[in-house]
């Protein structure tokens, strides 16, 4: 009986200590995440009547968002660009992660990872401007290629369009993709690869049947880490995207800041967030088979 009371008291004590520990992060999560999200959600059901905010609940914004083809086009373009960025980033990140995990001596791995993160020491904006310098009409790439006589006229498909957005974002997110894939590859027991060889498979089939499936948790993580923020990116499309490289986030920004139509912007933001969430969940559901075994 006394034991029970004491145990109960201790559990209570531990619970209290737990609350104290989480209270600070909980506070700023509510302040900086939950509160703004709720505000956006509520805003999306209000409407803007020229200069006054009409706070009667309505689905008007959503109706407009789904009937106006421009919004759908912007959203699908955002998803298309983010998808391309994700594909390019993950496909290029995999060999890098594989090389560092399998072919770099253990004592040099942290040096390599450190070098991979070096681009992050420069500001995000600076890097975008550097890409403008590289990809521009009279940029580094064009003048070099012209200089060696590879092309006659400067290439124009590499700046102020969707391609430029893909190139810039793929570079920016490369380390985010490399690191989770690297971690997944590091976790693979090397004797599994020897076992596959021992059971008659060559190097390529060993990769296909063992390495790749076991690296899938890392690939899925990399995909989500790159895809989710790129869908909502608006700085890169604004600076290097030109008129045809603009994305849904640019429209949301425009609605909030230029058109003074916060409810419409909020509705677009909710639609974009929901779309991304659904896509992420679909991806997770589709890859559950690999996540289970490999994550062990």
């Amino acid at each position, binding site marked *: 009986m006394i034991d029970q009371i004491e145990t109960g008291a201790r559990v209570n004590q531990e619970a209290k200590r737990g609350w104290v520990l989480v209270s600070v992060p909980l506070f700023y999560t509510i302040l900086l995440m939950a509160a703004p999200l709720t505000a956006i959600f509520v805003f999306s059901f209000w409407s803007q009547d020229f200069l006054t905010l009409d706070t009667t609940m309505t689905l008007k914004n959503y109706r407009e968002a789904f009937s106006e083809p421009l919004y759908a086009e912007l959203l699908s373009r955002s998803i298309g660009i983010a998808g391309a960025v994700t594909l390019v980033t993950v496909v290029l990140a995999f060999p890098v992660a594989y090389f560092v995990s399998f072919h770099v001596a253990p004592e040099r791995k942290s040096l390599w990872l450190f070098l991979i993160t070096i681009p992050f020491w420069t500001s995000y904006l600076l890097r975008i401007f550097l890409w403008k310098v590289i990809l521009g009409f009279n940029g580094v790439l064009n003048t070099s290629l012209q200089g060696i006589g590879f092309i006659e006229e400067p290439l124009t498909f590499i700046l102020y369009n969707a391609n430029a957005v893909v190139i810039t974002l793929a570079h920016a997110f490369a380390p985010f993709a490399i690191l989770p894939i690297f971690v997944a590859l590091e976790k693979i027991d090397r004797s599994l690869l*020897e076992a596959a*060889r*021992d059971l008659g498979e*060559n190097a390529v089939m060993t990769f296909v*049947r063992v390495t790749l*499936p076991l690296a899938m948790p890392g690939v899925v993580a990399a995909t989500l880490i790159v895809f989710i923020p790129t869908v909502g990116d608006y700085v890169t499309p604004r600076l290097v995207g030109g008129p045809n490289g603009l994305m849904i986030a640019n429209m949301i920004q425009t609605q909030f800041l230029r058109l003074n139509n916060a409810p419409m912007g909020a509705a677009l933001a909710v639609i974009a967030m929901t779309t991304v969430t659904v896509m992420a969940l679909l991806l997770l559901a589709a890859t559950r088979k690999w996540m289970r*075994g*490999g994550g062990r």
Partner: protein
Amino acid sequence: MSLISIENVHKHYGDYHALRDINLEVGQGEFFSLLGPSGCGKTTLLRTIAGFEDVSSGQVRIGGASMIGVPANQRPTNMVFQSYAIFPHMSVAENVGFGLRKSSLSGAEKATAVGEALEMVGLNGFGARAAHALSGGQRQRVALARALILKPKVLLLDEPLSALDKKMREQMQSELRRLQRQVGITFILVTHDQEEALIMSDRIAVMFDGKIAQLDPPPQLYTRPANRQVAEFIGVMTFLPGNRRADTLEVAGLGHVTLSPDQIIGAEGDVRVGLRPESMTILFDDMAAEPSNRVAQGTVEDLAYYGDMTMYEVRLAGAPRPVTVSMRNLPGRPVLARGDAARVVWDPAALMAFGPVD
């Protein structure tokens, strides 16, 4: 004709000489063990047979064909890894059938083969289980089935039992033995456990520092060790200092002994005299010594009681350290205590004189 022949094999890792002039032959259907302490090169040798390491010089043949430059996936060997290396993203059946991808069997025949392999290792009906839901013993069985389903000429086992608890290990020892007789495949086992090697093997190669110290069937290994290092590694042996001139041996605590030639190992002079615990007996009141044996007086310094037997550490008068004597605990026989006087009967024909280590 031997199935595997290893000739003058050396392996260097930079400055480190991992294998030094290894020569051995393993016959068809033999249960062969590589035994030695960790770092003696036994696993390296196994991996050169499997094809995971290439030799620095020398020749490795399997079934008469040279294996130099032949990758692991093209060798007629399969391996059971120390960690079992069960693919965590596959079911038990997928693991067992992993190596059948390129075989000419139809899907149904493959499923039958997987079922038979699982039955052989006692895992009937486990096919659909997820690999990561298995216990250690079950993983080991899956690893065995996965290797044996390919009917290799040689099955290589890298410390397969070291991760199991004692009961499970003993059970798997006899099961492996039974399985090997049943399939008739040559097994090569790497182990650091001398008892395991003695129990399971037809022949054992004892390795130290990259060299084979002795290659013999278990009884010869135990009764006629090639040198003191082997004698110390296999079973329990007590060493007393002695001095040998020709066939005359003077042992501290035991006196003069005349040796037969097969009791002499190495040079004369200051020698180490080896005694096995079972070659000595403590004389209880009701017992009389054999006429050929001799009796020495001593005191029990320590003992370990095992239930069926007791290991005594007895200090003989004039000996610098105690000798280990094992006694069966027969009904009615007392167990001595520390400090008790003990008369130790020993057989002069059972001791071995090891010359200075060369």
